[in-house]
């Protein structure tokens, strides 16, 4: 039996798991609040998926259009989320995002400027006004590097290439986490009074996705196993524009900024098809002719927005339909044209990394030819259920923020609302942890039995004589989810998906990793698979439960939004024998917020909020 005393132990007041935008911002806040703070990340610092965010960070600063204010941002967010968002989170987010942007600027972020020297803001899908603070099309890199360069001077201890395995508990409370160092394969116990999860989503469960190897839902699964709840997980965002060719880059993100800056979607007949897919609800605010859409692009405030900038769920479904009905591009996508919309030098200036990406990876010059794009699994709207103000989960001392937390985005996330989510709620999670720790009367104790079983679960994978190849199980899982729990869902296929997932769970129970524990990607893959399977099953079960189509969740057998759908959130939790699924009734929103969300634009414009 393993001797626990031989395992390295590191003590912190708070340990943050994940070092993307949310984790870094949370750690910075914890440290600012005087807490001894550690942060662990699976990769090197600064490599998290936040670097892939391209278009920008949404904040109603009103630098480009002075009519913008937090109320309109709030309204856009609720409408984009099909009113299933947590009202309070959408309110806090819209109110606090501008302050978080100013703070980033003080910490060294260098955003693109307007002619007057202010922070510039660009148009994006679902946002009424130019609202996205940006740096060309590499805003995520700017965000993460700024937080990194600031954070390393704040006394935070960074534990790089360290993977969290499972949470430790003392009774109901969280007491720390067991992890392993990638380099040596040795285990480490982080003892902490509070744990903040900032581990991102789990889109690695689909074969066509925009995520890196890290996005296996570790935080979601750890919270689930520790007694936390998952909410709204049926809502997975398929970003409408991922690369479709060559096969090796299928799924890689093509920023929405291409459309924000004037790019249009065309089918193989050369038709600008989005005009045929404008939902009734958005018709009053969407252009119905190319002429009007072009006027809007030139800044004509009397014109309405082009339909390419409808919310992502709408655009993704439209593309899928065009392809299915035989109007797709040669490699199974549609065309995204910027070449005929902007001069080459402006494309290179405004979308440099897109230019580079297509040139290098697809041998295509986007200043001359249209891109081929199609939907790619991109983002989890749902996640760990948290308190709107403090980000605390149902497990005392356990907090979650960023993509792994649920609530802000409802049924669909607006582009640009992710980066702002990270900094607004990363900070709030830090404040929440501080408040929790201040009230603790004693330090939670770690339990040797729990540690032993976590370690054994990981080493068994290496020690068993034989077993299935983790890479092949992962591929199998991805194909299963793509086929049965994809963009368009139907009862029969979802049921088949569940049966397939049971088979995959059995395979994973006997997965075998070859080699030693030192920097062994096969072993990591096998460990992460366990988390990914929980996430996949949660999506599948929640998708069965929600019998309507709303935002990122589309049921062929239940088309359209149903009034009943607005009355509940789907909650997943761990039961004694498997996964529990239930509908949690939604509370009525505060009157003031409800009237704001349903108000006309005219009523909100020009009336700057507090």
């Amino acid at each position, binding site marked *: 039996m393993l001797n626990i005393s031989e395992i390295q132990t590191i003590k912190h007041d708070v340990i943050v798991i994940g070092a993307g935008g949310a984790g870094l911002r949370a750690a910075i806040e914890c440290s600012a609040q005087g807490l001894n703070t550690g942060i662990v990340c699976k*990769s*090197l610092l*600064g*490599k*998290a*998926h936040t*670097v*892939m965010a391209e278009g920008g960070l949404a904040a109603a600063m009103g630098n480009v259009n002075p009519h913008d204010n937090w109320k309109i941002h709030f309204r856009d967010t609720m409408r984009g989320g099909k009113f299933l968002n947590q009202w309070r989170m959408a309110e806090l987010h819209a109110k606090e995002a501008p302050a978080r942007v*100013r703070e980033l*600027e*003080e*910490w*060294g972020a*260098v955003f693109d*400027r307007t002619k*007057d*020297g*202010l922070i*510039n803001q660009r148009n994006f899908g679902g946002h009424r006004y130019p609202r996205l603070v940006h740096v060309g099309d*590499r805003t995520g*890199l*700017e965000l993460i*590097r700024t937080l990194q*360069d*600031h954070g*390393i*001077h704040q006394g935070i201890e*960074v534990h*790089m290439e360290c993977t969290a395995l499972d949470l430790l508990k003392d009774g109901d409370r969280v007491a720390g986490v067991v992890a392993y160092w990638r*380099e040596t394969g040795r285990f480490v116990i982080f003892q902490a009074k509070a744990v903040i999860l900032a581990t991102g989503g789990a889109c690695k469960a689909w074969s066509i996705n925009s995520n*890196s*190897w*890290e996005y296996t839902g570790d935080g979601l699964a750890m919270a689930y196993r520790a007694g936390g709840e998952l909410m709204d997980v049926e809502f997975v965002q398929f970003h409408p524009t991922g690369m479709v*060719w*060559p*096969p*090796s*880059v299928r799924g*890689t*993100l093509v920023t929405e900024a291409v459309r924000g800056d004037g790019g249009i979607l065309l089918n193989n007949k050369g038709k600008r098809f989005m005009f045929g897919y404008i939902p009734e609800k958005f018709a009053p605010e969407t252009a119905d002719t190319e002429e009007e859409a072009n006027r809007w692009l030139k800044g004509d405030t009397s014109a309405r927005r082009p339909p390419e900038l409808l919310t992502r769920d709408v655009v993704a479904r439209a593309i899928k339909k065009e392809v299915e009905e035989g109007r797709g591009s040669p490699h199974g996508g549609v065309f995204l044209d910027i070449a005929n919309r902007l001069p080459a030098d402006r494309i290179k200036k405004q979308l440099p*990394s897109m230019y580079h*990406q297509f040139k*290098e*990876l*697809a*041998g295509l010059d986007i200043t001359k030819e249209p891109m081929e794009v199609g939907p790619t699994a991109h983002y989890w709207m749902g996640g760990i259920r948290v308190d709107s103000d403090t980000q605390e989960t149902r497990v005392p001392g356990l907090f979650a923020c960023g993509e792994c937390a649920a609530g802000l985005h409802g049924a669909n996330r607006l582009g640009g609302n992710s980066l702002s989510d990270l900094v607004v709620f990363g900070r709030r999670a830090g404040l929440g942890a501080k408040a929790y720790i201040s009230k603790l009367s004693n330090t939670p104790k770690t339990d040797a039995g729990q540690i032993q079983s976590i370690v054994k679960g990981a080493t068994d994978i290496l020690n068993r004589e034989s077993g299935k*190849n*983790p*890479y*092949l199980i992962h*591929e199998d899982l991805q194909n299963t989810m793509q086929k049965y729990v994809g963009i368009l869902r139907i009862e029969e296929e979802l049921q088949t998906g569940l049966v397939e997932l049971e088979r995959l769970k059995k395979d994973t129970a006997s997965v075998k*990793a*070859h*080699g*030693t524990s030192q*920097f*062994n*990607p*096969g072993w990591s*893959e096998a460990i992460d698979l366990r988390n990914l399977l929980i996430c996949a099953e949660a999506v599948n079960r929640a998708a069965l439960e929600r019998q309507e189509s709303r935002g990122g969740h589309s049921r062929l057998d239940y088309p359209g939004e149903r009034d009943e759908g607005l009355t509940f959130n789907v909650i997943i939790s761990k039961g004694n024998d498997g996964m529990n699924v239930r509908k949690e009734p939604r509370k009525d929103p505060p009157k003031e917020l409800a009237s704001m969300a349903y108000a006309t634009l005219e009523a909100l414009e020009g009336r700057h909020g507090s």
Partner: protein
Amino acid sequence: MAPKRKFRVWRGQGTEGRFEEYEVAVDPGMVVLDVLHRIQAERVNDLAVRWNCKAGKCGSCAMEINGKPKLSCMTRMDTFKGNEPITIQPMKTFDVIKDLVTDVRWNYEQNKRIPNLKPKPRDPDGHYRMAQKSIDRIQEFRKCIECFLCQDVCHVLRDQDKKDKFVGPRFMHRLANLEMHPLDTVDRIPAIRRDFGSGMCNITKCCSEVCPESIAITDNAIIPLKERVVSRYYDPVLWILRKIFGPKKTKSCGCSK
């Protein structure tokens, strides 16, 4: 059936290791990282390689391919003509942890030594104002994805192993970013000379040549920093330096990078 191609991949831990040969089917559009993933999935599950974004945006998968420092996710297989085996090895400047993974922690320690931005007060209306023109040059440095390929080829670090004397090109342009920031109030010139080793760089420009983001590290960061140091400490010498190095571009050192 996709055509097969031979690869020689460095395998080993620490100072011990050897090249192993693998024959791998190469599909159209594949990059070197895809080949490594295929080897990993089908042959050696524990082959150690770092990667994240697979789109040239995170800088994780830096390595030396046929002797050239590159991002493996941005190196397309169809750029290799002929049928010679392709050699893949870890960055030479850093110690090998395992296979293609090196110990790059030293870089993170250097960043920690650099004092961050300390901005001047805001305008009375709460804004900072900066002309786009005045930030274009620092935005160039901020494109850096920290792949550390520039550190890998820097002669001071790679051949002379003077990591105790010079922070390397990545952090010279980080310093330039801060020094040229219109809002910054910190004076780093003494430290740039004394602690960060601006005098060590002999302007061979190898760093600029390998930068996947095409940052003109030498011309736009290191030389201006050297000039600032010189004008502070050895003003009379400034004109000689300019005579030697500028404004004409200096020649490449002729190394294989």
